[in-house]
């Protein structure tokens, strides 16, 4: 699977790294891939998890000592 110019542009578009004017002239011949990338992006963004309150308290305890 070779990464082509179009593939990279899909990635640029998915991460909003293409100026709007460039978007309008860009012929997306792999639209499915663009939506796949957007879909996976949102899954990654939703996978955040929190540290425990014990860890937060330990850091705040160090902060309180300074």
């Amino acid at each position, binding site marked *: 699977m070779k*990464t082509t110019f179009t*593939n*990279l542009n*899909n*990635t*640029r578009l998915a*991460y909003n*790294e293409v100026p709007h004017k460039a978007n309008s002239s860009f012929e997306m011949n792999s639209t499915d*891939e663009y939506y*796949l*990338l957007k*879909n*996976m*992006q949102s*899954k*990654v*963004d*939703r*996978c*955040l*998890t*929190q*540290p*425990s309150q*014990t*860890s*937060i308290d*330990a*850091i*705040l305890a*160090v*902060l*309180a000592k*300074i």
Partner: protein
Amino acid sequence: MNKALSLISDAELVALFQNGDQQAFAHLLNRHKSKVFTSILIIVRDRYLAEDLFQDTFIKAIRLLQEGKYNEDGKFLPWIARVARNIAIDHIRKNKRQPIVVMDSGSSFFSSFNFADSNAESVQIEQDESARVRKLIAQLPEEQRDVLVMRHFADMSFKDIAEATGVSVNTALGRMRYALINLKKLLEKHKHAYENNFYKSEQHSSGL
């Protein structure tokens, strides 16, 4: 927590902390704890260890800021994410617990995947898509995983990622593309494996 602090930038919070305002650092901690913790967890794949390294990261940040060893005005998250990554990687190297996945081809990558834990706790975890996605990100080839973590959890631009990893912007973009496509394939494969395991269990439990 001081409500006004939530409105000010990371750079201003850093400056306030360096001028003696501890609440400013507490706010930075609160603002970025999830992204920093998740990026550590993805590298070390062990929640208890990740908790320890997360503490080490922020305690080290306190020291570095106090010593004036922070000169990345306005870019606190990429900076602390780099501190976190270095601490996690150092720990793995010292303890020889380097994750095993370093593969180029899709086939060897997928064939190493171990599914189908049967205990109740792991079934619960498998049902949690968020945990599943984290687990699968951790399974990506290191260079793809790193780009993904830097972009999503350290808020770095592709230009910054390219500089940090010593590759071109196009290579960084290509790695991100492969990371997301491979993650999609892994999720599909994982879903299949989970469903097969689930239905097998159902058959066993119903005596079939």
